[in-house]
């Protein structure tokens, strides 16, 4: 009975949020600038959640996440501009995004395979190379504008869609993290060899984690492209990947709530620092260095907000007598 009610409450909450996201902008209560910032926050939340799965939960150090975002952005854009009839655009938008996500997920596989053999610094270099390869590929394909970029997308991204995809990402990742597979992914972070030696199929889990992570990065890319209506390869450089790292390590590794916090704080901060001009791009890398030195686990650091944990997760045990020594 109690369980029913909390489930209803959760679904009701999601629905309410969506309705609010739809009504508020329409009512004119939110000016376009605030809406724009809200959408950036949402897109960054998706990116942070997705990167946190690989870096925070699985404990790898992927530094090329913008590569996945780029693939999602370009595929989705090409689909709406060159493939779908313009009139159908708004209706096909979710499928277009999923198309971009799937393309990114495929690229995720490319990174998953080297991760079988290498870890740590070496995998970081692999992901860095991946990011650079994607960027220079895009710069060299004239058909999609080369270095000049790609444009012509309608402004299909709006606040309700962003909120919708944030919720989908959050639910999918929560379901994944609190499962057999999710615990296996945590075991990889803690001690990969020991995980293998108690029967965890670490290769399969790495494929899952990279697939899911890249998929949602691709979704975020599609949303981003249809918000700006213009993309170019430079938008998906290492600097973008660095921003994502900052949001993950600011909010907290291995935490969904932390990802939401980190993305929100960082995005709003960058907006507030707009007067600094180009100097604000120094903020990200600088914060990353400071975080790594002083607070490597971030604000939430391996903790999770209660409402994001499934209530059945611990099998009825909630209070813990006599623990922390």
């Amino acid at each position: 009975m109690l369980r029913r009610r909390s489930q209803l409450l959760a679904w009701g909450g999601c629905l309410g949020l969506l309705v609010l996201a739809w009504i508020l902008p329409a009512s004119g209560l939110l000016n376009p600038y605030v809406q724009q910032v809200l959408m950036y926050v949402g897109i960054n939340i998706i990116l942070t959640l997705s990167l946190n799965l690989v870096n925070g939960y699985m404990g790898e150090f992927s530094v090329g996440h913008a590569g996945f975002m780029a693939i999602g952005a370009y595929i989705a854009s090409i689909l709406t501009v060159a493939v779908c009839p313009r009139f159908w655009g708004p209706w096909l938008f979710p499928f277009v995004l999923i198309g971009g996500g799937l393309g990114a997920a495929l690229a995720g596989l490319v990174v998953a395979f080297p991760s079988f053999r290498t870890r740590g610094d070496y995998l970081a270099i692999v992901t860095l190379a991946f990011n650079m390869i994607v960027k220079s590929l895009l710069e060299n394909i004239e058909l999609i504008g080369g270095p000049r970029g790609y444009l012509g997308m309608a402004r299909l991204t709006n606040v309700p869609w962003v909120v919708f995809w944030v919720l989908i990402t959050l639910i999918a990742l929560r379901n994944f993290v609190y499962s057999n597979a999710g615990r296996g992914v945590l075991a990889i972070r803690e001690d990969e060899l020991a995980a293998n030696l108690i029967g965890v199929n670490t290769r399969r889990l790495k494929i899952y984690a990279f697939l899911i992570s890249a998929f949602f990065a691709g979704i975020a890319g599609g949303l981003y492209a249809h918000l700006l209506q213009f993309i170019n390869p430079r938008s998906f450089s290492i600097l973008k990947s660095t921003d994502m790292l900052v949001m993950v390590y600011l909010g907290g590794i291995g935490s969904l709530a932390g990802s939401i916090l980190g993305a929100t704080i960082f995005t709003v901060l960058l907006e507030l620092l707009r007067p600094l001009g180009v100097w604000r791009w120094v903020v990200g890398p600088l914060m990353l260095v400071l975080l790594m030195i002083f607070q490597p686990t971030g604000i939430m650091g391996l903790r999770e907000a209660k409402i994001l944990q499934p209530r059945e997760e611990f099998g009825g045990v909630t209070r813990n007598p006599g623990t922390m020594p």
Partner: protein
Amino acid sequence: MALLEIQELCHNFGGLKAISDFSLTVTAGELVGLIGPNGAGKTTVFNLITGVYHPDGGHLYFAGQDITTWPSYRIMARGMGRTFQNIRLFKDLSALDNVRVGAFAQCSYSLRQTLFRTPGFKRQEAQMTDRAHQLLARFKLSRYALTPARHLPYGEQRRLEIARALISNPKLLLLDEPAAGMNQAEIGVLITLLRELRQEFDLTILLIEHHMGVVMDLCQRVQVLDFGETIFTGSPLEAQHHPAVLEAYLGKDGEPDEI
């Protein structure tokens, strides 16, 4: 019938012959000891059995299958569990999660079922969580269920490692120096625990141990290694008086180590 059959296993680390011509047959239900002085190659044998290294020569058969070239997770999922000489728990995970990770291979739900949290998924998860709580209770660890493993006292960490290995109901349990770092009283408790577990879980056990008391008490049969070579097989009592074994342990300087 042989549960584990090792035939003429060889393994080198660079120029070092860590294991040479190691053969051993373990029958279901047996409790066999693997002993020898420091650096003899005992842990290496465990690592070869569990696929951490693949042998340079020889064959491994487990539960009727040639596992010589299998990856670790597949060997373990076939029905093996092991603990480590230096405890290797997942330190930041709760005791409950440590044990549940041990049941990884038992779970049959798919990625789709996971992402949509289907009723089938929830049923299996609930079963697994119940079973994990039962195991924690069996090992007197219930009060630590939600405590990160790193905060457990040493003895409890050792027990948690055994619980984690047992949740998958393995046929064969490999224990690497379970009594290391324990005092006499704790060793007594451990011996009783292992005896009980063998009955309850219908286990076959291969045990590495330096404390001769534990070996004498538990093992029907021991195999003694020295510099990667088998120098004795037989009863623990005979081993203690066998000249080759004595020499391996006493060494050239004649300082009697604790056997």
